[in-house]
Every structure is written in structure tokens, then in C-alpha cells.
């Protein structure tokens, strides 16, 4: 099936038509024609490569009441994503070839985005011994990113071995940087507000200490390291230092850490409880600067759906995490584009090109150019809308952006030339 996208602005630049044939971009240019092609009018819309998320919780298997691979895939497509990495902290844990293949197959069946399973680093996320990383890498799911996310691989010797071992697999360890002894019982960022609110503090140093340790280890053994959801100014400084020393380290930041601060904890609404916690204005500023200058490579959602009863509780009893897939691009537009920190090529780089490279994904994060897979999205940058959790495709409702007006609307998403979203609605 052929598709002709008329008048879109690739990377926000000069308008052009994009002709898609057999799932690939056949031509990009002015006044293209193609008999029999389905035509999508895209005047004024920005065309970007399909987004790639390095960090999504799809909750299946185990918590299908909060999200399934299918509902999460739909949320992703509506957010402009064509590939998402599904984190391993399911029940059962994705620590075997069997579980990662199950998640991968569910993603194929949903057919809305490429669901790329992340394999657990350690058996059961217990941090004690390595899971069969090679078996997961060699499985149909072709796992390349390994993470105990939700838990830190805290044992330094085990972390060193994991970093070394995945070199043979073309893999990378994505570390949830949190020194567990420094965050026992932690509820929010440790600072003025935690002191007043009487919520146990999560010190920035607990993240930074692990990042410092891990970049040293990665440098020592010559392995790749990826740092999940960087949240502090100090972490950005450490990453900048490590990169300047040639360490193969990459890092991601979440949309919520780019926009929200610990001020959200006032009122104790656990929709704002997340791990790592929302931090200060100064941290937000450092994260935006780090993303702009490339110290932070990628935006990753850490989309974390939770059932209502896991959030409508006392703060301390609530599960940490918030939705992200459907608003991530809008938050990046608000925090990075409208502030002049990133142009659209920069957005494509941080949300598609680099995450695809970190995950070693073929076929994603490719340029909008002839011969490339037709994974792309069309965005109306002028649209603004107020986020209504009830209208989200996710099975859960824990959006921290409820009631907030955000810019940008994903009008269409194409996965290998097939529309997964048209007119802002999922096609299936």
C-alpha cells in the first residue's frame, strides 16, 4: 500500500511531500504524485522520525489491571512512538528467554509499536546473581538492554560483571541509580520540603553515588553503561565529566523530571510520587541544559501505570510512578522547544535517533529520507490542549499532567508505512 503525505514539514523545516511505498520512504520532495496512493494532508504539521522509548512499564504479564502490552502500545502510538522498550519488572520478572519472548509476541500481536523487551540483569531483580542474559539476547526478542529497573544493581562486583558480560552480546546495562541504604523508606526529594512535610527524604547523593561508581566501573572494563531517569544536577555534572573522559556512558531523562518539581508533593497527592522523586527548580534547569547540550542523550518516559487503588491512598502506601507515553512529546515541546533549547532536529535526536542507537534497534531512529523505513509521526505544534486522564488510552489514570495545558498534538503515527494513529485517533 502506498501513502502520500502532502505538505508536511520534515524536522520543522521547508514543506515537502513524503511518498511511502511498501513500508519505506520512497521519495521526499515538492509536488510528488502517486496514482492510487492514500493521501494524508499534512500542511503545517511537523514530520519527525517515530519516537523510541527506552523505558516503559507495560505491566504485562502480572498487572493487566494497570496496563497491557496492547493498551500501552496504543498509548505509545498516540504519543508518536514507533518503538518502546518494555521494562523487566513484570510478574513473573522478564529474566528468562520465555518471558521476554512472551512480551515480544504480545507486542507483535498488538501491532501498534515495536515492543522491545528489556531483560532483567539479575534473577528475579534480586540483585544476587546474573540472569541468563545470553539466552535473552539470542531469543526471538533480541534483547539488547538489560535492567533491574525499580531496583538498583547495588552490589558493585555484580554490576561490574554485568557490564563486562553484556559486551559480548552488544548489550548495555541500564542502571536504576539508587543506593538502597541511603533511600530506605524514602518518599520524596530530601530538602526543605521533605523536612516540612515530614516525608522521608531521598537524597540526591544516593543517585549520584551510584552514577559515580558505575561510570568508573564502565570506564575500567571498557563497557557501555546507560543511566536511567537521571534526576539531579549533580548527576548531570558526573555524566559530563565521564563523557569528557571517554567513558561509554549514555543517559536518559523523563518528561516529568523536565517539567515538575518537589513542589508537587504539597497536598500529598500520590499521583506525584515517583522514583527517583521530583526534585528542585535547580535540578530541572540542569536537566534541561544537559539534554540540550547532549550530556543527557535521550528522553525516556518511565511510563508507569498504576491501578487507582495503588494511588488513592496515603502517600507512603502509594506505588511510585506516573504515566508518560501520551504526553512525553508535548512536555518536550513545552520545556525544550518553546524555550528555544532544542530545534526539531534536536527533538528527533533525543527522542528517536539516540534512543534507537542505545537500544541497538535497526529500523528505528532513521532519517526521513528515501530508502529508510517509514516510521514517522506528524505533529501539530500549534495545538494546545488540557490533559484529561479519562481520555487517555492507557488503562491507568495516574497522569501528573491532569488539568495542565500542554502544547503539541500528535496527528498521525506510521509504523513501517501503516498508520497506527490518524486524526489523533488510534487506528486499532
Amino acid at each position, binding site marked *: 500500500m502506498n501513502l502520500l503525505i502532502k505538505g508536511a514539514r520534515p524536522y520543522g523545516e521547508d514543506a515537502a511531500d513524503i511518498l511511502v511505498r511498501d513500508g519505506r520512504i520512497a521519495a521526499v520532495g515538492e509536488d510528488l504524485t502517486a496514482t492510487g496512493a492514500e493521501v494524508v494532508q499534512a500542511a503545517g504539521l511537523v514530520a519527525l522520525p517515530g519516537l523510541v522509548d527506552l523505558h516503559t512499564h507495560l505491566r504485562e504479564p502480572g498487572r493487566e489491571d494497570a496496563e497491557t502490552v496492547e493498551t500501552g502500545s496504543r498509548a505509545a502510538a498516540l504519543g508518536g512512538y514507533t518503538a518502546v522498550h518494555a521494562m523487566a519488572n513484570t510478574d513473573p520478572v522478564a529474566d528468562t528467554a520465555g518471558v521476554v519472548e512472551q512480551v515480544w509476541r504480545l507486542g507483535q500481536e498488538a501491532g501498534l509499536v515495536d515492543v522491545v523487551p528489556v531483560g532483567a540483569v539479575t534473577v528475579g531483580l534480586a540483585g544476587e546473581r546474573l540472569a541468563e542474559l545470553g539466552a535473552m539476547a539470542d531469543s526471538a526478542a533480541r534483547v539488547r538492554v538489560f535492567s533491574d529497573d525499580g531496583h538498583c544493581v547495588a552490589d558493585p562486583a555484580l554490576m561490574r560483571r554485568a557490564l563486562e558480560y553484556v559486551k559480548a552480546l552488544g548489550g548495555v546495562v541500564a542502571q536504576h541509580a539508587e543506593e538502597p541504604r541511603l533511600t530506605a523508606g524514602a518518599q520524596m526529594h530530601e530538602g*526543605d*520540603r*521533605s523536612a*516540612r512535610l*515530614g*516525608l522521608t*527524604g531521598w537524597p540526591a547523593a544516593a543517585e549520584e553515588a551510584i552514577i559515580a561508581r558505575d561510570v568508573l566501573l564502565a570506564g575500567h572494563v571498557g563497557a557501555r553503561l546507560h543511566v536511567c531517569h537521571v534526576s539531579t544536577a549533580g548527576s548531570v555534572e558526573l555524566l559530563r565529566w565521564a563523557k569528557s573522559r571517554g567513558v561509554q556512558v549514555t543517559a536518559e531523562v523523563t518528561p516529568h523530571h523536565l517539567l515538575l518539581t518537589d513542589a508537587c508533593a504539597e497536598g500529598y497527592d500520590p499521583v506525584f510520587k515517583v522514583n527517583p522523586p521530583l526534585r528542585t527548580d535547580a535540578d530541572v534547569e540542569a536537566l534541561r541544559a544537559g539534554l540540550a547540550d547532549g550530556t543527557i542523550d535521550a528522553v525516556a518516559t518511565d511510563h508507569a501505570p498504576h491501578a487507582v487503588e495503588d494511588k488513592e491512598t*496515603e502517600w507512603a502506601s502509594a506505588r511510585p510512578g506516573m504515566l508518560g507515553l501520551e504526553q512525553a512529546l508535548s512536555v518536550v515541546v513545552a520545556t525544550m522547544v518553546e524555550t528555544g533549547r532544542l530545534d526539531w532536529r534536536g527533538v528527533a535526536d533525543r527522542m528517536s535517533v539516540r534512543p534507537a542507537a542505545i537500544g541497538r534497534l535497526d529500523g528505528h531512529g532513521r532519517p526521513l529520507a528515501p530508502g529508510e523505513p517509514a516510521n514517522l509521526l506528524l505533529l501539530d505544534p500549534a495545538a494546545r490542549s488540557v490533559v484529561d486522564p479519562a481520555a487517555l488510552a492507557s488503562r491507568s489514570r495516574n497522569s501528573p499532567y491532569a488539568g495542565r495545558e500542554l502544547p503539541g498534538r500528535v496527528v498521525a503515527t506510521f509504523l513501517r508505512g501503516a498508520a497506527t494513529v490518524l486524526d489523533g485517533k488510534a487506528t486499532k
Partner: protein
Amino acid sequence: MKRHLLEAADLDRADATLVLDTAAQIDQALAGREVKKLPTLRGRTVVNLFYEDSTRTRISFELAAKRLSADVINFSAKGSSVSKGESLKDTALTLEAMGSDAIVVRHSASGAPHRLANWVRGSVVNAGDGTHEHPTQALLDAYTIRRRLGRLEGVRVAVVGDVLHSRVARSNVRLLHTLGAEVTLVAPPTLLPVGVGSWPAEVSYDLDAVLPKADVVMMLRVQAERMNASFFPSAREYSRRYGLDGRRMGVLGDDAIVMHPGPMNRGMEIAAEVADSPRSTIVEQVGNGVSVRMAVLYLLLGGAPS
């Protein structure tokens, strides 16, 4: 007055003064009376919703409500549906459906009363939430200070002990500041929160340096479990550096008073000779607690004083 009393910051100076003045009026009205009961809240229902064991606070609120002729229901987490896993929200909606006018809540989670206030139409009174606040304790402490010293403006209050985990300290810092007193927090650095510098209080690690200037010394309870978590090396060392013993009491000014929210660890943060001395207001605080809680319930449920 706001509809709820969730934290000391809910009270501005006028509101806080109104509570203390109302408590004084209540004390006056009941003084010498054989039947210590006012008809003010007849027909109103007050629920004591206690998720933590706290006999003294629950009894104090129960007595306060009963002396105002309210119907009182004690709902304790133990032996109720809560122990079967009912959520705070479902419990709140149940109590709401039963027609409670006020819920007095004690909970181990900071902010639980704030959550509760979102789900009920009646008033919520925080009777202590986690390590956050205990506003009626601060009110009764302020009332006690005012009765003993005749004023709050400019009074120098040393709050000594486990500030990090203390809801009493948080409420007192805020309320005493609102009422014009000057608070100095005294503790080992491990028992002060990161961020304490933003509080309207001075901070000292040296009890001996603070005592001679203090008009009020408020000792905080040190929980036994802190001793196993390296907040300080031993109970003996804590007591030596931060305990109030007879020698230290001797350097206090003539009119200075010693307070403790109870229950006390005699021999740990406070020596028996201090607790039982004429400076001690500890028993008085308990009695004042009932009057102040009557004033709070009266103002939240009954309107302005006559």
C-alpha cells in the same frame, strides 16, 4: 478558621489566638463546676479515627468531644475492617455516610489527614500524622506557656531532641513562630532534617549553650528504635549530651519551665528529678490538652464563641 485543622500553618495569628482565648473561656466556664459539660455540640458526631495506638491523645479528644455533648465514636484500626485491608478512602466514605461532622485522625503516614480531607465533607482534625504534624499538641503547648509565663511574644523556647522524626516539633516551630515566640532547635545533627535551615527557628547542637537563655525547655521523646539506627552511639551518650538532668536544670532562669509531650523516657531525655520538679508542666499539659481540643472542636463545628 479554616474548615480543617491539618497543620499548624492552617492557623494565622488571629485564629491561633482565638483558639487559646476560647480554651481559656472554656476553662473559666467549667472551673468549679460539678458537671463539667457544655451543651454546645449536642447532636453532632465526632469520630476518633486512630490508626496508631495513642491512648492519651484519643482519650483527650474523646473527653473534649464529650464535654461539649457531642456523640463520640472511637474507630480504631485494630479490630476493625481496617485490619482487613480497607483503604483510608473507603473508611472515610463509610464514616461520611454515617453522618460524622468531624473526624479526628491519627495515622502513621504523613499527610493522611490531608488525603482524608479530600474525601469527606465534615471537618478533619489532625491528631498526629507520621513525622509531619500534631497541631493540637502545639496549641496545648502554647496555651500552657501562655498560662505559666503570661505571654508568647518574645518567649524563647528550646525544643530538644529528635526533631527529625517529631511531629510535635514541626507543629510547635510553626505555631510558636506564628505567635511571636523564638524557637531554638537543639539536637545532634543526625536528628535534624536536611532542610531545617529553612524553618523559622535557630538551630544548635549544644544544649548547655542554649539553656541559660531559654524561657521554656521542651523535651522530645526519643524512640527506642532510633538507637539501633546509628542516629547516636548509645542511650547513655545521648542522655549525657542532650538529656535534661538536675545539673542542667540548675542553669535555667528562675521562671523557666520544662515541658514534655509525653510519654517520657525517664532517665533518657529527662531525669526524674526534672520531670517531677515545680518547673515541670507535664501534668498540666495533659489537662490543658482537653481544653484546647474542646476549643478546636467548638470553633470548627460550633462557630464563633459567644
